């Protein structure tokens, strides 16, 4: 039963913490651009406003897609260990690949629902998002396999425990951590990699047809996704830590990603692929080679 409480805590933290962080990110970006920016709670207002509106529904698959997206994101967020074995809701199921693929349920649901809206912009956006996935996942998964190969486990709470004795992966395999961080930016869809949502060219891509509560629900889903993505990075490369430290590290990673993204323009889709399959993928393999040879710190 405790697992359920922990899972609920996961979700609650994911909701309040991440949505606040999103607001903070807007504030940070604004400050970098010498603006005042919205208040940190702006995103809560946006979400609840969206939920309060009278939306349009483009057919049952549109509804179903949104529900599937949110459902998948909730399921994934509920599994993520928050920095330590104690805050691991399901120690038997916190397998890395399970999380990555369960995470894909949400993405698939979103992609399906959005294309189901009948808008070609959504289809273009989804096609871009999937291509981008092909880009960032590859180096990320290679780095992750070397991590799992090194510690002989793919269970995240065990990886955290191993890091407690061995040192953070950021130190043990700095190249891998850097590559994973670059992938993380792509995963978050932040600035150089916000190709899928490019509002100026493809009318915010997948979201083109989202109105009212659909928008709100997807924003919540997005918050859970961020929780999963950044949380995984913190767990796997920054050694997790107690709940407080976990959140602090979370903030650090998030702010860093925001800072980077706020000063960069957008890639084109091929540029993105060439970028990810160039240096980061090469470094990922290099990292794997180092791990194989035992050249880790």
């Amino acid at each position, binding site marked *: 039963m405790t697992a359920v409480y922990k899972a609920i805590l996961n979700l609650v933290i994911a909701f309040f913490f991440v949505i606040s962080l999103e607001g903070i990110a*807007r504030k940070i970006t*604004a400050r970098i*651009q*010498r*603006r*005042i*920016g*919205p*208040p940190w709670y*702006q995103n809560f*207002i*946006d979400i*609840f*406003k969206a939920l*309060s*509106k*009278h*939306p*349009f529904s483009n057919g049952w698959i549109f509804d179903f897609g949104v529900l599937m997206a949110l459902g998948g994101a909730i399921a994934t967020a509920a599994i993520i260990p928050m920095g330590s074995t104690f805050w691991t809701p399901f120690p038997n199921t916190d397998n890395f690949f399970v999380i990555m693929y369960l995470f894909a349920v949400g993405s698939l649901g979103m992609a399906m629902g959005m294309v189901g809206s009948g808008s070609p*912009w959504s289809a273009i956006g989804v096609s871009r998002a999937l291509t981008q996935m092909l880009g960032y996942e590859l180096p990320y998964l290679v780095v992750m396999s070397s991590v799992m190969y090194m510690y002989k486990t793919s269970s995240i709470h065990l990886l955290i425990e191993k890091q407690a004795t061995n040192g953070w992966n950021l130190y043990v395999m700095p190249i891998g951590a850097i590559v994973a961080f670059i992938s993380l930016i792509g995963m978050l869809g932040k600035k150089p990699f916000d190709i899928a949502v490019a*509002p*100026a060219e493809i*009318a*915010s891509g997948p*979201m*083109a*047809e*989202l*109105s*009212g509560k659909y*928008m709100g629900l997807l924003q919540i889903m997005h918050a859970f996704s961020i929780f999963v993505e950044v949380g995984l990075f913190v767990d796997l490369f920054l050694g997790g830590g107690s709940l407080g430290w976990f959140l602090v590290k979370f903030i650090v990673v998030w702010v860093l990603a925001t800072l980077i993204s706020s000063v960069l323009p957008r890639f084109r889709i091929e540029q993105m692929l060439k970028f990810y399959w160039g240096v980061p993928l090469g470094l990922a393999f290099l990292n794997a080679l180092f791990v194989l040879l035992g050249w880790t710190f």
Partner: protein
Amino acid sequence: MKERTMWEQIADSLRSRSLWMLHYCTGCGAMELPPTMTARFDMERFGVAPMATPRQADIMLITGYLNTKTLRRVIYTYEQMADPKYVIGFGSCTINGGIYFDSYSTINRLDYYIPVDVYIAGCMPRPEAILEAFNYLMEKIRKGEADGWKRYKENYEWYKQNQIRSLGEVYVHDEFHE
């Protein structure tokens, strides 16, 4: 005016703090929006953000004159927005046709065709005026007075009549004749 429930009041206050804007940039007024968004005036601090599609947007900004051809599209877009939705008429063109008042193809008063919640006078209005208009609209929303979308529903027949009168019926429906 009907008494609002508590939920509606909360919702209205939320709506007033998060105005997503679709700017319909047909005329010269679009020029004034970049400074309003960027560092000098920064409208995001009021929670106003540009959006790409009518489905996501709360307010529609008509930034300049509308001729009969674009008006059809504005109405079409307006009807695609989710309730509650607000319209800001931007510049004198939307009020009385501005310097194009005697053109054969330009409409003079926007609120004959769609309900306008706030007009911004001037040719051109400065960003300060735009921000002022946003704040005024927020105030109206909070009070529950920005009810253009309800009026449009209630007086749909009237609006439709005006629209048809100015635009005329379209007899051939395909991509080349509209």
